[in-house]
């Protein structure tokens, strides 16, 4: 697409181009993600907020589709979006978990039931593939820890785009099957996510594909803002006091903040302080380590944790996540794999929500921060659950016991029932 074409089509949308987040250098809204003319910083989308303000109100949003596209004025697309029902997931008032932890007002934003592939990645991919189509790509791709692969393959199938995705070869079976079923070309790379990413950067250099998290990254990452918008709307057009979210690359965390800031900026919600706390697994906690050491730069690590979906050893947006936690009076903490499994079980038993390891990490950090007094019991707190537990059953298979296997006779049931009532805590049979 030429520059003139871009200018003409962009006049219908609310975004005006791209800009370097570090040095501010402007770029046209094409497929690019780094400030190649100056400093190699990440590019972000620039919006005309006056135009947004003039077009959007609480009423227009409430009258929109029950998907992320109710917020389309805030998203970097020009024409008809690919709407597969992504977003507007439940904001669950978690009273039992709140009581257990000693909080008065706790909500779970449950993207484990997002559509079509049960993770928050459907938000970013819906935006990225809509933009990919607008930019003329016919093949889309990504480097993924699993959830992004599921989402890219599924939404590409719906949109009729060719798809080739890259994952580390040691991923959970559910995430591999949950990609293959859509019949993309799937490359399982013998290496960790950071190595997959590096390979993909080189492929992106030569193949001319739309990589959702590389050359489409400025558009892709904007999809996460909808997790901020929805919480505001679902809380009755108000901000929470404290949010806890998992940190992988750090992008989600920064975009929830941006979502809050934009709604404040255009007058959709009243401003007030919101504390931002981030959750990492100890086996891959470069951002938590930098936060604890008071550093504003990240030293990469080699991941070793069951929380594979957030195992990014070299997190691109880590410095921005640290900045947000510091500015808002939040914190960034890490928990062990055992605590992550306990977090998964706690959320399931208290609220009926089965999350994957990333969600277990968030709940474990939430619990830890309450115990450490870093979340005030009176704060309205939102914990972001970003993925579904059915995708990572391996992680908990050996920790949740087994069913009682009985004969189809009352006596057999009576004996097993007695046994189950005698055990304390777990009601399952020993594994």
């Amino acid at each position, binding site marked *: 697409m030429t520059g003139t074409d871009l200018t003409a089509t962009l006049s219908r949308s609310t975004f005006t181009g791209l800009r370097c987040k570090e040095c501010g250098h402007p770029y046209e809204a094409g497929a690019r*993600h780094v400030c190649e003319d100056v*400093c*190699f910083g990440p590019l972000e989308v620039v919006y005309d907020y006056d135009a947004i303000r003039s077009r959007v109100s609480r009423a227009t949003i409430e009258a929109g589709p029950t998907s992320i596209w109710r917020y389309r004025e805030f998203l970097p697309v020009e024409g008809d979006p690919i709407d597969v029902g992504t977003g507007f997931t439940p904001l669950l008032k978690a009273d039992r978990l709140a009581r257990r932890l000693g909080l008065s007002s706790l909500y779970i934003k449950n993207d484990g039931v997002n559509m079509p592939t049960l993770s928050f990645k459907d938000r970013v991919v819906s935006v990225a593939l809509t933009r990919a189509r607008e930019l003329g790509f016919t093949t889309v791709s990504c480097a993924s820890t699993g959830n992004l692969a599921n989402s890219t393959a599924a939404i590409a199938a719906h949109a009729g785009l060719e798809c080739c995705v890259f994952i580390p070869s040691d991923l959970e079976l559910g995430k591999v099957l949950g990609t293959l079923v859509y019949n993309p070309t799937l490359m399982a790379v013998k*290496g960790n996510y*950071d190595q997959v990413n*590096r390979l993909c950067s080189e492929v992106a250099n030569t193949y001319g594909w739309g990589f959702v*998290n590389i050359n489409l990254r400025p558009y892709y990452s904007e999809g996460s803002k909808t997790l901020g918008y929805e919480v505001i709307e679902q809380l009755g057009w108000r901000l929470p006091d404290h949010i806890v979210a998992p940190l992988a*690359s750090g*992008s989600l965390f920064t975009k929830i903040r941006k979502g809050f800031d934009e709604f404040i900026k255009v007058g959709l919600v009243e401003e007030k302080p919101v504390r931002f706390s981030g959750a990492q697994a100890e086996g891959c906690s470069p951002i938590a380590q930098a936060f604890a050491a008071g550093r504003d*730069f990240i030293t990469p690590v080699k991941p070793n944790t069951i929380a594979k979906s957030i195992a990014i050893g070299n997190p691109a947006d880590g410095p921005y996540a640290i900045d947000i936690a510091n500015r808002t009076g939040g914190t960034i903490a890490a928990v062990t794999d055992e605590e992550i499994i306990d977090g998964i079980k706690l959320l399931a038993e208290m609220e009926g929500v089965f999350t994957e390891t990333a969600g277990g990490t968030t709940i474990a950090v939430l619990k830890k921060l309450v115990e450490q007094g870093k979340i005030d019991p009176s704060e309205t707190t939102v914990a972001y659950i970003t993925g579904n537990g059915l995708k990572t059953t391996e992680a908990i298979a050996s920790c949740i016991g087994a069913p009682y296997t009985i004969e189809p006779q009352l006596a057999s049931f009576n004996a097993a029932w007695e046994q189950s009532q005698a055990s304390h805590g777990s009601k399952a049979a020993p594994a």
Partner: protein
Amino acid sequence: MAIQVLIPTPLQKFTNDEASVSLEAASIDGLLVALEGRYPGIQARLCDENGKLRRFLNLYVNSEDIRFLDNQATLLSDGDEVSIVPAVAGG
């Protein structure tokens, strides 16, 4: 010592669209100087005013991030492959 350097798309305007170039250098710092010698202006893109590699750039020697090695003082051997990769988001 011949070092093969993989150049990302955004920098190929300096290398006459070459995605891979061969240079003589004994360390990463030496490589940066050699790159600048052959492709004037490229160093200012890679490094800040103090000569430090920009924080959003990753350099790998034979697939290993130089931050796990000796950063810019990392020594290079004949036949090493160095890739320059801008940071990307993930998951």
